[in-house]
């Protein structure tokens, strides 16, 4: 047998971010989930801005917390929905730190709606990255405030009915209405171009935080293949054809002072 043909020249073209531990927490996610991709963006931004050494991440409760706890930066998992309350205190007590929250759509806009609204009311110098996968992923795909009209979930078996469950919440647009908000945007990672745009949004948010302008918010659309009952590739199509029309991508606020 000619083993020479099987020899592959190994050349690293794209490694893991330095703040990912080995094995990366990304291994905990379902195939086709976008959370890992979003974590990669945050990791790259923290490293490029050289703030990973003074960053403190406050994670909520949900799938998004799994990787946070394995990051090689200071991280705390907070009570469900309360990351922004806890982040407020540690940021005020330690103004030199870069405190940010990662939260799911349910964590931020359902159980944590009070903390979200009031952190923006107070204009806290924080950044929040919110993962929007239009359902509760961790608990098995139930209705979230972001669930699309007609979307079947474990608790809306006939699809979300506006007469019973109301309409999807638009967190990025809502955040933009607060005077205490410096930056608000919604991105997606379902295409390489959107990956790059989302990275720019997240970088903008952290730069505004470093400048101390106000509260910063980036909502990122994320796929949830098992709970959407779709393949990873079908999820990309759903985001493009159904989710983005409901949740338009772009910047909604970008204040310099």
């Amino acid at each position, binding site marked *: 047998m000619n083993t020479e043909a099987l020899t592959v020249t190994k050349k690293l073209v794209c490694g893991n971010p330095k703040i990912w531990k080995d094995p990366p927490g990304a291994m905990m996610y379902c195939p086709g989930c976008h959370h890992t991709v979003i974590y990669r963006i945050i990791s790259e931004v923290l490293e490029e801005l050289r703030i990973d*050494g003074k960053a*403190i991440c406050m994670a909520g409760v949900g799938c998004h917390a799994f990787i946070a706890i394995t990051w090689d930066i200071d991280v705390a998992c907070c009570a469900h929905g309360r990351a922004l*309350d806890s982040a*407020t205190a540690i940021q005020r007590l330690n103004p030199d730190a870069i405190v940010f929250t990662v939260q799911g759509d349910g964590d931020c806009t359902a159980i944590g709606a009070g903390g979200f609204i*009031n952190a923006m009311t107070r204009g806290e110098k924080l950044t929040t990255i919110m993962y929007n996968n239009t359902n509760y992923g961790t608990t098995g795909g139930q209705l979230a405030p972001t669930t699309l009209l007609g979307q079947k979930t474990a608790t809306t078996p006939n699809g979300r009915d506006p007469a019973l469950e109301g309409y999807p919440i638009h967190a990025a647009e809502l955040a933009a209405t607060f005077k205490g908000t410096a930056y608000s945007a919604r991105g997606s990672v379902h295409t390489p171009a959107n990956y790059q745009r989302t990275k720019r949004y997240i970088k903008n948010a952290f730069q505004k935080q470093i400048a101390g302008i106000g509260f910063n918010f980036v909502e990122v659309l994320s796929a949830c293949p098992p709970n959407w009952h779709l393949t990873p590739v079908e999820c990309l199509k759903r985001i493009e054809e159904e989710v983005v029309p409901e949740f338009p991508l772009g910047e909604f606020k970008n204040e310099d002072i």
Partner: protein
Amino acid sequence: MPEKIFIQGNEAVGWGALNSGCQGYFGYPITPQNEVIQWFANEFPKRGRVFVQSQSEVASINMIYGGALGGFRVMTSTSSPGWGLMQETISHCAAAELPCVIVLVQRGGPGAGSVRHAQMDYMSATRGGGQGGYKNIVLAPASGQEIHDLMQLAFHLADKYRNPLIVLMDGILGQISESVEVKAIQFEPLEEKDWALRGRNNHADGKSRQIHSAPGVFPAPSYPDYISWLRHAEKKFHEMEKTELRYETYETEEADLILVAYGYTARVSKEAINMARAEGVKVGMIRPITLWPFPYKIINEKVKQGCKFLVVEDSLGLLIEDVKIGVEGRTEVNLVGILDRHIPTDGGVIMPGRVLKEIKRLL
């Protein structure tokens, strides 16, 4: 020379916290403890310390969680309905081993109850009121001076055990004004909070820190599985129970009847005992200063000496359950409670005369 000032009990909370080195206060207005949050709003920012009025007691306690994560001495205060709201995250603080101080100025319950004094949160304060069976030290001051002093002990013990600590007051203690000597108390030195979140590059070892309240979900190197964490917790709770018991005895030598009371009713009881002793009636008091751990042993010793027991408590009877545990069913335990107030309203109080009457009835 230490400063002596005439202040409300609620303000003594603030002075005690200030002298303990408390760096952040986070609270929400609720009667009858509004003087606490107002004191911090006035006194903390001008001293470069952090004050935030939160949007709810749920937010207050989660701000405490965040402040404690950063290694700072932080506290909140509330009254009974707000206390109910805080339970979930007090449990998270216990699970994440975050030291913090919660001051509870009790009012009448249940529900919204009344906005006046009462002692009706004894069980949730002493039994780990939130989910999951944690334990916390409960300090029960009975005067302005003791509020000021125990606030400092509270921060020390919270840090020592990395555990939430409750200071249990009542509306009367919060509202009455007394002379208080304001001075910092020295305690044994404690270890640096090497575990706190400060940003990876600010740690001496250059290693990142991760803190969470889910020992059964995220294993940590020191506690690789859920049961190993519970073993650690059990050891810590046992150590607190063994080491931190505090109580005061008053006229208990040769007493035939022992009163048990904390907070404002302990003041009332002391007055009643003085009146009774003046008439030659042999009565004394055991006043728990820690409600958890509870002084079961001294109560048990008094049972063996043939004492009867009378609990004086502004509720339908909660502290009495602990006294009964100490008594082990071997003698009678009586109650002068909220139904024995001098007038049957939210503003009524248990008066020394009523306690004296019961003392005489029992002896």
